[in-house]
């Protein structure tokens, strides 16, 4: 129960703080502020406890003491909130309620389509477990490793998989501790809501039209990468959502009757904290975070005469960006001497600080395009080298969808046109965001190896930027055709995306066996090993989390920590009890992975629907 209390207390504190601080009449802004604050409140105590543990002042990081700490924070916030309410009741200005949005049938239809697809994804969680490769190989294992070790330190092996900034995994750690391993994607569901609200607010700033902003948001939420990541244990969506939340909060800091300078500063701080969460979630976001800092600092310097808060603004920006990310940077620096480890620091071809330059292979883009020029038509082809058993090229890492292909590339060109033709009277935010978008596209092209999911902030921001086009089409004479096209394009994308979870759902119901061992196709024996058994994983990266067993009581030495030539000495050093080996069933060679092992069990299991068979061997270390 401690993890639920921990998260619940943080949520109530965030609610109280937002109710007192955030005076926005727009409910989207209030909810967004609350969600960002909630994330900050549940991340920072873990960072603090982990830092104290690494410094040797705490023996282990445990969730029960953290829940008590969170309760104390809630008590302080509640008292402060009560005192503030009595002192501010009379002075609070009456705000005019925003005009209620017009009813638009096509938006309701679009929302039903996107919501329906999300429901199928959600229903899949009831019969399935997280099953995406990177999630199983290291995102979930790192969260479980922290929980079992009681420490967030980088292990002695310096494996890059366990050394990445990992704010998303803190949420997963809480859910694992609560025994909710089927529902780890709830962390990303929160991110999807944050992403939707941020897209809506940014789009509204570009058009001042709620319907256009809502249409842009639906397109963003229909992007297959977004839909798949919202129901997975990946981290790109979480980082993207908070980066966009930071952007939205920053561009709204003087809006909504925020005439009180302290409230504007509070929103600036919240914007920086949101961006800091994204920096501390994924190392590719160092780039986006750096751009966020430069642009926001430039805007604050430009506004210094109007608002006269330059020094305080810059200070809050730096503090906000650092607070949710400095733990990871400090941890890497103390352990390896390289603050951005596992990324190497290379200057003019010379390695200044060592790291792993091959986390993402140089030719990784070949999984999505057959030649570099094909990127120009990727939204219309959505080719994938290995689409898997169902052949559908949509996944956590690929696919932009039909609604995106229909409106977004054209919308970007239209946004450039609007920015140029309206001259200095045009919407400034739109102009700045359009310039930034193209600059970031260049960064993605040259700096992020053209991996589609690394460019997720770009694809979502592009949806917001196409809102002027959506408004123009919706206000034109042929609006009926536009509305039909809008709904059809969303429906065709969502039908394809939701087919994948629908297949898993039907397969699960048909099999009738919803056990973990059946879902992941591993021997049931592994679930029945005594708690604390240490297993060396020779079954492959996909099994680093799986081998922990249904009760998560096995301690797994992941495949990436094992040496290329396994030796008995190494296994003894690591206190391994068993070596788990998985081979193709045709490979019947009797030889063990190394000397000094005794075969205690051998089992052949059918894998999935493709008809493959795996031979499992469990070796005891003697």
């Amino acid at each position: 129960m401690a993890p639920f209390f921990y998260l619940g207390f943080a949520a109530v504190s965030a609610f109280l703080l937002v109710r007192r601080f955030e005076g926005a009449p727009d409910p989207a802004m209030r909810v967004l502020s609350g969600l960002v604050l909630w994330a900050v409140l549940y991340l920072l105590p873990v960072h603090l406890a982990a830092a104290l543990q690494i410094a040797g002042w705490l023996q282990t990081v445990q969730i029960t003491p953290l829940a008590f700490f969170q309760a104390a924070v809630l008590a302080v916030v509640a008292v402060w909130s009560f005192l503030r309410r009595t002192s501010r009741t009379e002075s609070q200005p009456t705000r005019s309620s925003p005009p209620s949005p017009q009813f638009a049938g096509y938006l309701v239809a679009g929302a039903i389509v996107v919501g329906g697809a999300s429901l199928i994804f959600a229903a899949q969680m009831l019969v399935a477990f997280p099953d995406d490769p990177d999630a199983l190989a290291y995102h979930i294992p790192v969260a479980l490793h922290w929980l079992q070790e009681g420490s967030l330190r980088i292990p002695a092996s310096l494996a890059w998989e366990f050394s990445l900034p990992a704010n998303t995994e803190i949420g997963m750690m809480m859910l694992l501790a609560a025994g909710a391993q089927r529902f780890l994607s709830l962390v990303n569901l929160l991110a999807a809501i944050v992403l939707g609200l941020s897209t809506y607010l940014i789009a509204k700033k570009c058009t001042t039209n709620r319907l256009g902003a809502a249409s842009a948001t639906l397109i963003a939420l229909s992007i297959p990468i977004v839909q798949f990541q919202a129901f997975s244990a990946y981290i790109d969506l979480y980082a993207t959502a908070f980066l966009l939340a930071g952007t939205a909060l920053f561009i709204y800091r003087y809006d909504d009757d925020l005439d009180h300078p302290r409230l504007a500063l509070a929103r600036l701080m919240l914007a920086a904290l949101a961006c800091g969460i994204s920096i501390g979630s994924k190392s590719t976001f160092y780039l986006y975070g750096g751009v966020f800092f430069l642009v926001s600092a430039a805007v604050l310097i430009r506004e210094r005469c109007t608002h006269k808060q330059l020094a305080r603004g810059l200070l809050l920006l730096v503090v906000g960006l650092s607070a949710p990310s400095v733990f990871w940077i400090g941890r890497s620096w103390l352990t390896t001497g390289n603050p951005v480890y596992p990324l190497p620091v290379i200057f003019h071809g010379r390695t200044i600080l060592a790291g792993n330059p091959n986390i993402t292979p140089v030719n990784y883009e070949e999984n999505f395009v057959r030649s570099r020029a094909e990127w120009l038509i990727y939204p219309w082809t959505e080719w994938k080298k290995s689409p898997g058993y169902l052949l559908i090229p949509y996944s956590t890492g690929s696919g932009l969808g039909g609604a995106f292909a229909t409106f977004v590339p054209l919308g970007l060109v239209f946004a450039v046109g609007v920015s140029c033709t309206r001259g200095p009277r045009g919407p400034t935010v739109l102009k700045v965001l359009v310039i930034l978008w193209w600059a970031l596209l260049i960064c993605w092209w040259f700096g992020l190896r053209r991996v589609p999911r690394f460019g997720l902030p770009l694809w979502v921001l592009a949806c917001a930027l196409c809102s002027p086009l959506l408004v123009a089409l919706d206000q034109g004479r042929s609006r009926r055709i536009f509305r039909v096209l809008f709904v059809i394009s969303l429906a065709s994308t969502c039908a394809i995306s939701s087919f994948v979870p629908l297949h898993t759902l039907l397969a699960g119901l048909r099999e009738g066996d919803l056990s973990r061992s059946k879902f992941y196709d591993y021997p049931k024996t592994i679930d029945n090993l005594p708690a604390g058994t240490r297993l060396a994983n020779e079954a492959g990266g996909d099994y680093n989390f799986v081998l922990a067993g249904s009760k998560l009581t096995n301690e797994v030495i992941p495949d990436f920590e094992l040496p290329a030539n396994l030796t008995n000495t190494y296994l003894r050093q690591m206190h391994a009890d068993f070596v788990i080996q998985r081979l193709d069933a045709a490979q019947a060679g009797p030889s063990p992975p190394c000397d000094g092992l005794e075969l205690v069990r051998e089992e052949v299991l059918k894998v999935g629907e493709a008809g493959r068979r795996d031979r499992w061997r469990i070796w005891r270390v003697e």
Partner: protein
Amino acid sequence: MQVLKERGLLLVATLSYFIWLGHSFAISAFLKSAHRLFSKFL
């Protein structure tokens, strides 16, 4: 002029959708897989 511009934009968007419909590998894969799945169930 405004009407022409709007209709031009809508035409490009519609063409864009049909190009996606005709060329995206997602569509052909979906049709193949859906057929395979439902023939198994029915």
